[in-house]
């Protein structure tokens, strides 16, 4: 009920609509990556490495994709072949995939007619893979790590914070020292140390989960502290004391009385923490310690943009994952602020 009311309030504000809209669009794009991507993540084309984004032209009354040729292989310089283009096709045939894991199909939103042409909306990378497609598939990793991590963190934070706020005493003391301790460590240092300790015990395709776990272990402390404070104040309320005197068990009280009051704060805290996860994963993958080649993740794609020739030969399209991260994070931040204003206008930012 509360969530529904909050959601309606969000829609009342223009910034709320904007940020929520952007996020929904991003997550939908990630889910429907198979449909939206013209090429598979790993489809290489060594004839067209570092290809610039293909221009769209209007030809013969329809939208077409400009054809290019390689004029200088030593520089990866391509020039448009004047007058030659390939028709753009909607809902055409492309590589095979399982739609949402359900049924096999070959239909994609945008494809190109003609086997010699390529549709590179955002250019190609060092081995000729389509950046736009990888951006979409990379969104799956980068966006869902945040959601997964938040679930773990909020649960942990709620349990520790809630319980210590409720019980107080020695449990509270120990828990809060732990929290202070966790917050006293520089996050990234701990992240790297954890990663180098845990990684060798896992396979490379399990890295996704290892990273989520690591990020959650670092992030729960802040949430716990805030929730503890709130639990403390809620505990003073009449109905809670009444429930206690009636003999209800602490866990029941937590679930029935404390939690509902915290939900809105939890929502705000979660929304404002997700960017941290996205940035954490991006940083790890960027350093080569997270998602590895040849999977796609925004951080990993950015690490390839670090090559010097990218800067000097101006392959700017390799930097687009950075902007994708930026848009996602800013959308979350704005949404978080809007939610906070709705839930408690007096709640200060940290």
């Amino acid at each position, binding site marked *: 009920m509360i969530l529904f009311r909050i959601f309606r309030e969000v829609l009342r504000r223009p910034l709320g609509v904007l940020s929520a809209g952007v996020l929904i669009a991003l997550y939908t794009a990630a889910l429907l990556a198979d449909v939206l991507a013209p090429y598979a993540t790993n489809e290489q084309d060594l004839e067209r490495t570092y290809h610039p984004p293909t221009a769209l032209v209007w030809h013969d009354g329809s939208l077409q994709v400009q054809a290019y040729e390689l004029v200088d292989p030593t520089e990866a310089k391509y020039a448009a072949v004047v007058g030659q283009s390939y028709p753009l096709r909607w809902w055409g045939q492309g590589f095979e995939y399982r739609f949402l894991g359900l049924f096999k199909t070959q239909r994609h939103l945008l494809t190109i007619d003609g086997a010699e042409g390529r549709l590179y909306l955002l250019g190609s990378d060092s081995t000729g893979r389509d950046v736009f497609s990888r951006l979409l598939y990379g969104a799956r990793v980068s966006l869902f790590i945040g959601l997964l991590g938040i679930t773990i963190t909020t649960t942990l934070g709620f349990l520790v914070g809630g319980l210590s706020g409720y019980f107080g005493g020695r449990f509270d003391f120990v828990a809060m020292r732990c929290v202070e*301790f966790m917050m006293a*460590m*520089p996050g*990234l240092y701990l992240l*790297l140390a954890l990663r180098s*300790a845990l990684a060798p015990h896992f396979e490379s395709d399990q890295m996704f989960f290892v990273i989520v776990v690591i990020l959650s272990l670092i992030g729960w402390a802040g949430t716990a502290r805030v929730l503890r404070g709130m639990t403390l104040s809620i505990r003073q309320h009449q109905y809670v004391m009444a429930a206690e005197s009636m003999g209800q068990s602490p866990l029941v009280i937590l679930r029935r009385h404390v939690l509902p009051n915290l939900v809105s704060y939890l929502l705000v805290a979660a929304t404002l923490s997700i960017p941290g996860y996205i940035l954490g994963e991006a940083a790890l993958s960027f350093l080569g310690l997270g998602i590895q080649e040849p999977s796609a993740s925004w951080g990993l794609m950015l690490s390839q943009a670090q090559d010097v020739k990218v*800067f*000097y030969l101006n392959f*700017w399209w390799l930097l687009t994952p950075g902007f994708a991260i930026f848009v996602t994070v800013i959308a979350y931040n704005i949404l978080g602020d809007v939610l906070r204003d709705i839930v408690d206008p007096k709640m200060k930012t940290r």
Partner: protein
Amino acid sequence: MIAFILRRLLTLIPLLLGITMLVFILMSLAPGDFLTPVKAQRDVPAELIQAIETEFGLDRPWYVQYVKWLGNVVQGNLGHSWAYKLPVVDLIGQRLWATFLLSLAAFVFAWGVAIPLGVLAAIYKDSIFDRIVSALAYAALSVPEFFLALLFVFLAAQTGWFPLGGATSIEYDYLSFAGKCADRAYHLILPTLALGIGSIASIMRIMRANFLDTIRAEFVTTARAKGLSEFVVMFKHVLRNAINPLVSSFGFAFSGLLSGALMVEIVLQYPGLGQLMYQSILREDQFVVLASVMMGCSMLVFGNLLADVLLAWSDPRIRLEKKK
């Protein structure tokens, strides 16, 4: 005041111990031990390996190792780096200084820009200036630090106005003292900007919020009623009170700086503590990893201490608070 500092120092020691123990446990989880990379090298005399094994108790369980390591640390022996063939202490010294310089520069830059911006934004609330600055702050908060650093490298490569990395030029040794300072400063420009911009945003927003809150406080109305000029009211009374809560977040800001510095150092190839730690992790140079993490945490902890001291100095209520 001294008593306060001492009390705080006392609470710091268990904190440091706890952190190092945690990292030590983590290191022992990694496969192999401190000596794994050494086996491939032939120039490490067997006596040295033997000596280190006994000094650090590498054949004993991890808690024994920890105690021995701690004992060595207190005596100034942080172990031996296999990648650089130097005692870790020598290695960390120069790197620590470089990172400290960078963090300090970013800190001064961030606060120096953010506080006036925040004050002005508060005073001219809801004006075009306020709106633009707030929007920019939002944007700056959302950009990943390493991406910003990457963009800066891009800029440096295209324009040639800035060095692409490093802390000093090739001719550094042959410059005069003033020349050396200028050279270091020149190399610090991009890293400081990359690191500081994110901080500016968050500090500015808090400053603005605090300032607005303080303006509404009663003592301000009193001051105005007393006939003090607006300028004095704003900058002598409001500002002083508005800054206090900000100082308490000093420690947290410092933590963010340290983490951010790591990424910036790596992208801009600035030879600091963060970059050292990253490379040591890649090379499995365990002693160095352990020492860097410990140094990083120590810097953070002492940063917090400094913040607390500053806060206590400016706000007597905290000094006099009884220990719970």
